[in-house]
């Protein structure tokens, strides 16, 4: 079994229980253990009984803000546990008019970064039985014995270059803040790709995108994908061909990424949700990097009052065309 952050969980539990029973919220969005010990899935708690399943551990990667889109149709007032990325997702939804601030209570959980099960097993080099964590160290227990690894080495890809582990918007902060972090390697893969010759780069993406099943899990997980009807499903016009082929896969992924230009909060849920491990975050990060270079530093989701860069302009903006 994974170690639960028992002390923290008690704090969280007490805080939300009071609000749920007291009627401040009608539903709590949290996490509960899934089928496997290394899965923590969304919990939809309406009552005290449901709340008993609440968990808080190193596998609570799922972005809960995204679930507000559906749940707000059925519940008047919803409490959500938000990590740094979930809170910036909430700002994304708020700025896009998808949620009403006064109908949501945000419980802020500064986040230590979530662990990557695939990385854990790969590191253990055997089927894992359980893990234990202490002071930034993870003990991997398997049939092959115990192995001790630094926690930082085992983080999900999306967590490795996280700059804002602390929620940027909340009603109650339940845990101690961890402070902003540097992310020096955030654009490393993007830069590597940029340096390739065009044809090689195309071949790279051709290979990656050829795996795409067009299951649209990336879209479902994404806080910036909040359209009522996504372009891929429209018939009039039919933007996206239904055929399962390279050209259409490129179209989908380029347009998906482009729709996040200036809006993507870089939570990495798209990539985490992808069943075939397409490095989708690089497409999003490429856009973030370019927009920052061209139009000034901007982190989407930090402040819902700042207009996304593609909705505004300056008369003397630079351009990326061969003629300036």
């Amino acid at each position: 079994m994974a170690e639960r952050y028992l002390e923290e969980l008690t704090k969280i539990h007490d805080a939300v229980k009071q609000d749920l029973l007291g009627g401040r919220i009608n539903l709590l969005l949290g996490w509960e253990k899934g089928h496997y010990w290394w899965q923590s899935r969304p919990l939809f708690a309406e009552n005290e009984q449901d709340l008993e399943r609440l968990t808080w551990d190193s596998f609570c990667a799922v972005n809960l803000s995204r679930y507000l889109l559906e749940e707000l149709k059925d519940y008047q007032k919803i409490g959500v546990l938000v990590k740094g990325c979930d809170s910036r997702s909430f700002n994304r939804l708020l700025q896009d008019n998808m949620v009403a601030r006064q109908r949501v209570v945000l419980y802020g959980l500064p986040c230590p970064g979530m662990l990557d099960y695939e990385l854990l097993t790969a590191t253990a080099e055997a089927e894992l039985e359980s893990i234990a964590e202490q002071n930034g160290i993870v003990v991997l227990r398997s049939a092959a014995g115990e192995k001790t690894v630094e926690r930082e080495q085992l983080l999900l890809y999306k967590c490795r270059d996280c700059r804002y582990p602390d929620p940027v918007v909340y009603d109650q902060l339940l845990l101690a803040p961890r402070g902003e972090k540097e992310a020096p390697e955030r654009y490393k893969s993007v830069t590597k790709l940029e340096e390739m010759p065009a044809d090689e780069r195309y071949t790279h993406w051709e290979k990656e995108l050829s795996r795409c099943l067009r299951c649209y899990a990336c879209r479902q997980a994404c806080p910036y994908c909040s359209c009522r009807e996504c372009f891929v499903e429209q018939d009039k016009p039919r933007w996206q061909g239904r055929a399962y082929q390279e050209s259409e896969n490129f179209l989908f992924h380029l347009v998906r990424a482009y729709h996040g230009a200036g809006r993507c909060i870089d939570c990495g849920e798209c990539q985490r949700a992808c069943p075939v491990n397409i490095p989708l975050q690089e497409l999003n990060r490429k856009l973030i990097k370019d927009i920052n270079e061209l139009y000034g530093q901007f982190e989407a989701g930090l402040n819902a009052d700042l207009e996304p860069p593609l909705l505004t302009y300056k008369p003397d903006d630079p351009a990326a065309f061969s003629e300036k």
Partner: protein
Amino acid sequence: MPRTGVFICHCGTNIAGTVDIARAIDASRNFPGVVHADEYRYLCSEMGQDLIKNAINENNLDRVVVGTCSPRMHEGTFRKAAAEAGLNPYMLEVANIREHCSWVHRDIEEGTPKAIALLRAAAAKVALNDPLDSPELEVEKRALVIGGGIAGIQAAIDIAEAGYVVDVVEREPSIGGRMAQLEKTFPTLDCSACILTPKMVEAAQHPNINLITYSEVEEVKGFVGQFDVKIKMKARSIDPVKCTGCGVCYEKCPAKAPSEFEMGMTKRKAIYVPFPQAVPNVPVIDRENCLYFKKGRCQICAKECPPQAVDYEQQDQIIERRYGAIIVATGFDQLDPSSYGEYGYGQHPDILTALEFERLFNASGPTGGKVVRLSDGKPPKKVVFIQCIGSRDKARGMNYCSKICCMFTAKQAILLKEKVPDAKSYVFYIDVRTAGKGYEEFQRRAAEEYDVAYLRGQVGKIFPEGDHLVVHGVDSLSGKVVDIKADMVVLAAASIARADAPEVGRIVGINSDSYHFFNEAHPKLKPVETHTAGVFIAGACQAPKDIPDTVAQAGAAAVKAIGLLSKDVLKGEACTAIVNQAECSGCLYCEAVCPYNAINHIEIEERYHEEMHKRTVAEVNPSLCQGCGSCSVACRSGSINLKGFTNEQILAEVDAICLQR
């Protein structure tokens, strides 16, 4: 299935010389939906148009493609012809096979396939055309002018003369604005009041003009032709019908306050008219300084007023009125130079701004028209004028040139010499800018005939020494540092936008530049229009400008307003954006990019899980939309589309052009 007719014009040999018409006709017959194809030597001629009309009727065509010259040339002609044959005029598309094909390609082999591709694209597009209507809206035949300075007065007179009713809203108790504060005007040295007062009186007496003074515009709703405006009339405390303007009230009033009109250099009474020629000549009570309003005692004015016009009970009033057009002419302010420590403005009575100095010449001004030092009442013998205070200053002031200072400084130096013949003027300048009729000659007269010393350079410090002010500056042309023992210093402070210009812009719905001057719709071709149809700008609220330019611009704005009011109904743009509200998720990115404020949001109700839910969606006002289509790109789900250039149509054109070479 569409029934499209294709008509190809030879344009003499202009098209037929480079495009094989027969081949193009053959190809056109095979385009999807095309049931008829024909050609003619000059399709735009009457005979050519008849050919199209007859074919529409005979073949029951429901849409038309013409392969002709540019749509910018004859699209209107052919749309009209289609309409005469009973089609909606927007069921026609033009393939530009002349300017974009036959004229730029060398021979038949090059021109023909391209012409066919362009015709195929037009046929693919027209198959998706829908009938469109231009929105029609009635025009309220009344104009609103905001601001009663020379710009507002001129615009109002011009509109009134054209036969339309116009309301002028002025914030101050009297119209007149900045020009009323001036003694003389350059370059003719006309007395400002002598040319302005008749205009003020004309405005007041014109049957088509209503002056609404001591009032402010609070809210503007609606759109071109139908602006619904709320105007707040501040309580004047005087019944304007009874008041005869005799002036007894302000003679007797015991309470005083700094005079705004005299730039605070002298005092006025709590009941006052701002200046003797005020229009209307009806005083107001400044309730903040009135003893009765402050302490509940006094009422001398009411007791003394012969027609008993004083009314302490008067309340602010809101007027609600509809206007067809609005002219914004709210003028400018003068920068307060106190932030420039080196000039010592505000710390010495003989360091003045130009507007303050101007008042010294005026017979009703603070010195009764005597040009004297405020410190000791002696006439100044040496006056230093400093240019570009806060102008051309990107570090601490405004990056722009205020345009009028070079000229008013020359004027003031000349006036000074006339009032104080033994006075000597010095002007510190960076560049002398005198573009304007008679301006250069005027400035040269100052230098040559009035002995004004122009020093190219700036001033680093001013400090008092005995009775004098030492001006420490530099003359860059001689490369010498100079110290001038002056009696008075006049600062040409920058002309800046009114402090509340952003607020006015927000209320009226027009945007401003980074200095808060209102933006014209096009810097060259639409100098008085704004991005909000039906709202025009005039005068120094757009940028610093002198009186001739202001009056010219006011006339231009008036003509635009008259042109609008002369129509009974307005025909709007037919190709406007439209929202699919079932799909719209309400993110309102479209609203953010719309340059015309044509997109609003509304709440709609929707059934979900047996319950009604409210939801925000975007809505387009077709009267305001100009059809740029920027919103349709900001919308990720394509829920807002542009009629006439829909997503479907453009994709169909792309497909048609690419599919066959």
